[in-house]
């Protein structure tokens, strides 16, 4: 027990005053008597003439002292945490700030028990219960974790009620729960001078960093929604990956790649079907080991399939991730995907690397088709070991990628050929993200000279091997070596390097598939003024896009977060006049390597236990403010004192019975 206002104990100073008041002598009451003869004969003791007497141990005095003591202690606002909380519901001490981190990730869709309720339902009910325990003066904040973090705050009773109602109807956002980011946000949102408490309501299938948890500044309680389910009930199967790419054998057919994961404890044998445009075109029985093992599947697709769906034909707690869809024909029909012109007389490794980039439109033209090169309309032009005439190059109005440009091209070079060795690398450059050049040999290469403003990425002792420059006032990247003459084209580093160069020079394309709840983020075209996205249910959302300026190019990205429903979404771009600029589709699939794993993270509770308040050494219990009880007790004592004071006069005024006194 501690005192929230110790200064209130100063009221105990009234106790000596009360004692002094009772010690003083009062003028005795005057009473007429029929005669004093017998009183005189009774030899009475004379009345005490002193101003004060010894403190009389009378009941009124004791009751008054007790009442003042209780009031003084009540003014000091004693608060306790313990069994008294049950005796005095609703009497908690300080206003507190309860911050609930509510997991709305995809895994919370799993059925939590026999009642058929999902973990999301259980988590929402737990959050409502926690909010219902709050009182006037408390502050509640709910951080909804999912594809996007939503924050709700309530500071009074009305807003608390509103928050609970809102929570009852809140749709599950889906996606992944970034618990670390939510904990950081919680630490920033906590109000000062309030009793802080954070509650993470999750299925436990989340991870957190111990250092982040320790920085929250409040104790964090972990509540597992659906904790009563067994390990077998958490066993989940999921399609965690799906992709369709042209067959590497070069026969023009597409190949579907998919992975089925088993997050249960035991190996299972599951039937998997492949549906193309509504017709079953493949079936397989897979035996998958337990504990998260994944089994890849590969199907060669017949041509002309617009929509493919892989489905696990076996029920489990999370049915949403039992199927995944892809739109392999979408790239051909989409008009929003980046258009890349490959100018090559002998397409080889470069062409394959470009084709493997998802959701781009690739057009290959020979170097002598000058009209096609000059026609423009492409987002990126790739020159493969060739360079257009100067007048043609002047008409190229898009960024360009140059692979082993020949002499006489737009770039300065020296005479001579060397077999370069990498001696300089610009560390951390995005073009080299995931690119491992160790062991790569480059073959004979010309020696290029960097111009002013050029930026070398990879260089040798003789000159740059990879650098940024400008061509026709447009951004350009030059790879000086010939992939076909080196072993680079046979290494994994090459398609990654090509993908990085395309990502830098060409606008982002809309991904063909994204996980459930993940936000769709892409860069619209320059002329785009509005983007309309239609969900699988047919609901359309129109996002306004600001006109492009040099200052806001990065901020023009389209961010669409309402991807909580699995299925195909359509995207349309319009210009400021309302004309259609293009359309495409993307698919949202629920399967995810982490969200489909319904098993609780055993270390999460220990990590969250590191979180403490600055002055809190243990998890706080419900603290009860005792002053109302003490004030009530003081009032009862005052009432008892009144009754005690009135009793003698009532006894004195009671009529007595007739007593015969005749002699």
């Amino acid at each position, binding site marked *: 027990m501690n005192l929230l206002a110790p200064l209130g104990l100063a009221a105990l100073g009234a106790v000596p005053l009360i004692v002094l008041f009772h010690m003083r002598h009062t003028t005795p009451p005057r*009473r*007429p008597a029929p005669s004093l003869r017998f*009183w005189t004969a009774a030899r009475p003791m004379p*009345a005490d003439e002193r101003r004060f007497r010894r403190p009389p141990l009378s009941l009124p005095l004791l009751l008054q002292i007790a009442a003042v003591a209780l009031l003084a202690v009540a003014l000091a606002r004693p608060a306790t945490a313990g069994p008294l909380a049950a005796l005095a519901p609703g009497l908690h001490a300080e206003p507190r700030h309860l911050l609930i981190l509510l997991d709305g990730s995809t895994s919370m869709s799993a059925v939590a028990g026999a009642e058929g309720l999902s973990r999301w339902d259980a988590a929402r009910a737990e959050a409502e219960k926690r909010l219902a325990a709050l009182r006037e003066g408390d502050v509640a904040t709910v951080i909804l974790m999912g594809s996007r973090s939503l924050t709700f705050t309530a500071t009074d009773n009305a807003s608390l009620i509103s928050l609970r109602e809102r929570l009852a109807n809140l749709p599950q956002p889906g996606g992944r729960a970034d618990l670390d980011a939510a904990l950081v946000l919680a630490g920033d949102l906590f109000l000062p001078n309030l009793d802080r408490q954070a509650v993470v309501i999750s299925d436990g299938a989340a991870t957190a960093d111990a250092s982040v948890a320790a920085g929250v500044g409040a104790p964090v309680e972990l509540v597992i929604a659906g904790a009563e389910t067994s390990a077998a009930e958490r066993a989940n199967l999921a399609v965690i990956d799906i992709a369709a790419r042209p067959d590497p054998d070069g026969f023009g057919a597409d190949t579907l790649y998919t992975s089925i994961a088993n997050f249960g404890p035991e190996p299972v044998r599951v039937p998997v079907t492949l549906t193309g445009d509504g017709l079953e075109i493949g079936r397989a029985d897979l035996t998958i080991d337990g504990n998260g093992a994944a089994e890849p599947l590969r199907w060669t697709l017949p041509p002309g399939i617009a929509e493919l769906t892989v489905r696990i034909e076996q029920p489990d707690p999370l049915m949403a991730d039992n199927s995944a869809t892809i739109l392999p024909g979408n790239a051909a029909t989409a008009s929003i995907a980046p258009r890349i012109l490959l100018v090559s007389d002998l397409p080889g490794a470069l062409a394959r690397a470009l084709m493997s980039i998802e959701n781009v439109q690739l057009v290959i033209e020979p170097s002598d088709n000058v009209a096609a090169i000059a026609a423009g309309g492409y987002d990126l032009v790739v020159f493969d070991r060739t360079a257009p005439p100067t007048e043609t190059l002047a008409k190229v109005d898009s960024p360009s990628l140059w692979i082993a440009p020949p002499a006489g091209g737009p770039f300065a070079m020296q005479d001579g050929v060397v077999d370069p060795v990498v001696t300089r690398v610009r560390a951390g450059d995005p073009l080299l993200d995931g690119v491992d050049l160790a062991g790569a040999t480059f073959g004979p290469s010309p020696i290029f000279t960097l111009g002013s403003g050029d930026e070398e990425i990879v260089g040798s002792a003789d000159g740059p091997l990879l650098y940024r420059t400008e061509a026709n006032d447009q951004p350009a990247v030059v790879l000086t070596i010939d992939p076909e003459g080196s072993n680079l084209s046979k290494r994994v580093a090459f398609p990654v390097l090509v993908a990085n160069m395309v990502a830098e020079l060409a606008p982002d394309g809309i991904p063909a598939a994204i996980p459930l709840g993940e936000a769709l983020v892409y860069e619209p075209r320059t002329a785009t003024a509005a983007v309309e996205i239609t969900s699988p249910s047919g609901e359309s959302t129109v996002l306004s896009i600001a006109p492009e300026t040099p200052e806001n190019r990065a901020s023009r990205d389209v961010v669409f977060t309402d991807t909580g429903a699995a299925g195909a979404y359509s995207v349309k771009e319009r210009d400021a006049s309302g004309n259609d600029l293009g359309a495409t589709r993307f698919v949202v699939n629920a399967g995810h390597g982490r969200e489909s794993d319904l098993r609780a993270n055993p270390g999460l509770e220990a990590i969250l236990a590191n979180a403490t308040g600055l002055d809190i050494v243990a998890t706080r219990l419900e603290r009860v403010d005792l002053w109302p009880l003490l004030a009530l007790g003081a009032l009862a004592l005052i009432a008892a004192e009144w009754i005690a004071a009135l009793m*003698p006069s009532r006894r004195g005024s009671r009529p007595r019975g007739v007593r015969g*006194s005749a002699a």
Partner: protein
Amino acid sequence: MSAPTRRLASLRTRARWPFADRPATESESTAAPDEEVLLDERTLARLRGLTLVSGHARTEGLAGEHRSRRRGSSPEFADFKRYSQGDDFRRIDWNTYARLGGLFVRLSEVTTELSVHILLDSSASMDWRGDPARSSKFTAARRLAASLAFVALWGFDRVAIVPFSDRIGASFGPVQGRAQVVPTIQHLQRLRPLGGTALAPSLAAYARGRSRPGLLLLISDLLSGEVEELRSTLHDLRAKGWQTAVLHVVDDAEIDPEATDSWLRAADEHGNAAASIELIDRESGEQLRMAVDDEVIARYAAAVNDWLAQIEAACAVEETIYARVSTAWDIDDVTLALLHERGVVA
């Protein structure tokens, strides 16, 4: 009829007929003790069947209803006696002579009236009550005097009511006859306490002023003088042929230790019981400031009991009827029973 007119008519009605149709309730008697109705119809009904016992007091006259040992010529037959010389021969019963041949004289019974003197102590000590819910001793004494006066007048006795304190006040009467009941009680209602007390001198002075003794009823709290002084006066009265009865009016707070304790320790208007008290003598104004404790109350009770015993002994020696009447008693129950037991009424 307006409200003031109604109140005036009510006062007139009370003045003309000072009896209530029903017993007075407690609230009425405590709300206005000075105006309380002294007797009610139920009490009067009981009183009508009583007569005062004359004892050895001399009766006289022929208007009363007291039977006399004298034989006279009234129509009420009493006995026969043989004629002897000197008898009034007009009283010889000739019918008896015709039957028996002897002369017999017819004797008749004579009834006489009694002179009743009610001496009412009107001193300031009588104007006191230990419990605000009860009547003062003076009111109780007046009620007792009214009862006895009613009995006497209803029996055609002569009644005189004499208030006294340290002197003898204006007396009422002697009056006789039932028509005097209302004026007598109205007079008692109008009486007010007078002041100090000189009990024995007043008693002696009154007796000296009367040529013929009668029944003297002393109604007092006796808080005056010494007991020996009272005994001496009673002795003189008895020697002169007075039949005397002492009706001692007391309040329970005077003689009952428990009631005394409650009166002394009664809480003030703030609910505080006093540890000390200042007593003021009603008659002398003398003050006594003292501590209230159980011992002083016990000594007070012992002194009072000793005084009461002395009074009773003095009355017994002087063949005086003594009855102690509490203000807590009703007049028609305990009081009349006690007076009947002590031979005041029959």
